[in-house]
């Protein structure tokens, strides 16, 4: 298993992270936005694992594990809110949701 340079891993996680951000900003479907957030969290997990491998300390793994549990909780509540907001509307589109403004 060829081990690439640490900076490659960081670059990879950065790219994934910003794909996630792009997903959140550009897509209008709330589910995909949540998936974007999942992407961002996984990107940071990747970086965490790479760093803990580089520094040889398991704290990174613990952190990654915590991030996974938090991501799960967040997904749960996120989906619940999305269901509550959109369960009776025809279109599932974040841009319809603009009562609060000004």
């Amino acid at each position, binding site marked *: 298993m060829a081990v690439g340079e640490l900076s490659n891993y960081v670059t990879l996680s950065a790219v994934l992270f910003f794909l996630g*951000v792009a997903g*959140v*900003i*550009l897509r*209008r479907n709330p589910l995909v936005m949540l998936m974007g957030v999942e992407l961002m969290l996984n990107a940071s997990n990747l970086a965490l694992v790479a760093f803990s491998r580089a520094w040889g300390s398991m704290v990174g793994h613990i952190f990654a594990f915590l991030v996974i549990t938090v991501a799960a909780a967040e997904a749960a509540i996120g989906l619940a809110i999305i269901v509550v907001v959109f369960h009776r509307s025809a279109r599932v589109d*974040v*841009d319809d*949701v*603009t*009562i*609060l*403004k*000004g």
Partner: protein
Amino acid sequence: MLHHAVGISAHYPLLLATWLLPLAGALLLWSTGPRIQAKGAVLGTTVLGAAFVTALLSIPDALRAADGYVGAQQPLVTWLPGMSLGLLLDPLSLLWTLVITGVGFLIHVYSIGYLAGDRAIARFFAYLNFFVFAMLTLVLSDNFLGLLVGWGLVGLASYFLIGFWFEKPSAVAASRKAFVINVAGDVGIMLAIFILFAQLGTLSYGGVFAHVAQLSPSTLLAVCLFLFVGCAAKSAQVPLHTWLPDAMEGPTPVSALIHAATMVTAGVYLIARCHPLWDASPDARAFVGVVGAITALVGAILGLGQWDIKRILAYSTMSQIGYMIMGVGVGAYQAGVLHFFAHAFFKAQLFLGAGIIIHALGDEQDIRRMGGLARKMPFALLAMLTGTLAICGIFPFSGFFSKDAILYGVLEHGHPYLYFIGVLTAAITAYYMFRMLFVVFAGQARTPASVGEHAGHAHHAPAWLMQLPVALLIVPTIGIGWLAIGGEQSPWARFFEPIFGASLQPLARLGMSEATSSLVVTSVVLLGIATAFFVYATPQALRNAPERLQREGQRMPGMLTHAFYFDDALDGLFVQPTRALGRFCAATVERDVLDGGVHDITVGARWLGHFFRSFQTGFVRAYALVLALGVAAFAAYYVLVGVTR
């Protein structure tokens, strides 16, 4: 607290009584006026009578020369080391006090009759008493500060009295004009006070006159001129005289007391009181002399063009005061004061006589609608005739002695041109006074029928109330002149010796003696009377009097009707520019700069508020974008910091 404040120590109870009685009367009448109505008049008159009596009783105090100083001293209250108020009674102020309280008392009696039936008579007498108090403050003060206080209060009293019938808009405007010009005079005196206090550190007459030598000629001239500004305003000298004719809006007794006898002569008193200052600066004297002469001439000329009987007398007052100022100005103090003394009586008599005529004709003041009153009102004819003879300076009357004394004094003190103007003015005075006499008394009655008989029974007040004071006035009109006969030894000269003794002596022996100059003046006056007779009193002139007077009315030259445009000049030079500046400030500075500025700030703040609120579009993705931009900014900044460090 009050005792400490006023610090009265009763050295001279009589002096204090004379001074404070009128004030007490005024306050009493003010507060209880509406209730006691008619009785208020009697109260006011008795108060004045008491003041006159105490003034008479305090004559010995005034003449007693104690510790090198003539008269009675009464310190009152000190503001600062240099500034304190006190009373001083010496021959000069005694003379004025006697005139004020004496003539004042007579006019009070006269006013009971004149204003009988007026609803606000009590208020009128309150104002009259207040006026006497103010005039006494002015005259009795022992320093410039008290003088200034008196000056202002007298201006206020004249404002009240001119504007007594304040329903009449013309009376309201006249009173305001009189007061504002008076304040202009006050300002002049204040400036003189500042100079004196800055230079000498004290304002009392004694202190100032003792250190006159310390003052440089230029400051001395400045002080004299600024004091003269005060005099010009009060005594209606040329530039600041425009308020006097309008002041005739007030009731006739007011004109008699204030605008003939007392207030307008305050300027004369000031110059007489400050004679050491004037002695020390010759060009100030020259200036004052010239202004006095010009005023006399202008007053006389304007007197020609008037049809209202009171305005004629007003302009004659202005011209006579011009004489006094000229006399006192050039240094002939005793002559000037004598003319004041005489003028006070005969002018009061003329005004009261005119009052009787006006009262009889139901407030008719235009001489063109009078005429032929000789038969109907013999007493008025007597009063007016004696007054006119006195004012023209015919032999037995006081005017002859005082006017000639002034003219001769002017000649003695080396002012030949002023002498010539004085003589010319005497002639014009004779002309317009007799013009008034002939138009009013000679010929047929021109008063419209309705007015005639209505006047007859209007008298509910007894006729003698108005006629007695006039009769009493005739005596001094004739008698005063005799006091001055006898040159240096005359009772008048000896009376004023302690005051004016040290003042400068006449310059050079003159070509002509006093007798010849009085001959010249008398002949010129007779010439004036003759011309007036030919113009107005010849039989055929009397026959077609109405049309002729009408024609004369149209042909009156513009200069005369507009009184040499002084009024418009004053208005144009001072009043309009201030108002224009005010409107300019209101329009541009206030509305555009200040309000505009604040308005822009608030609008700008609100617009900025809206601008920042506009970011809240409500779209979640827009918010996410803003977050992303924020992240980008932070990241960019930190990378740059990281690299450059």
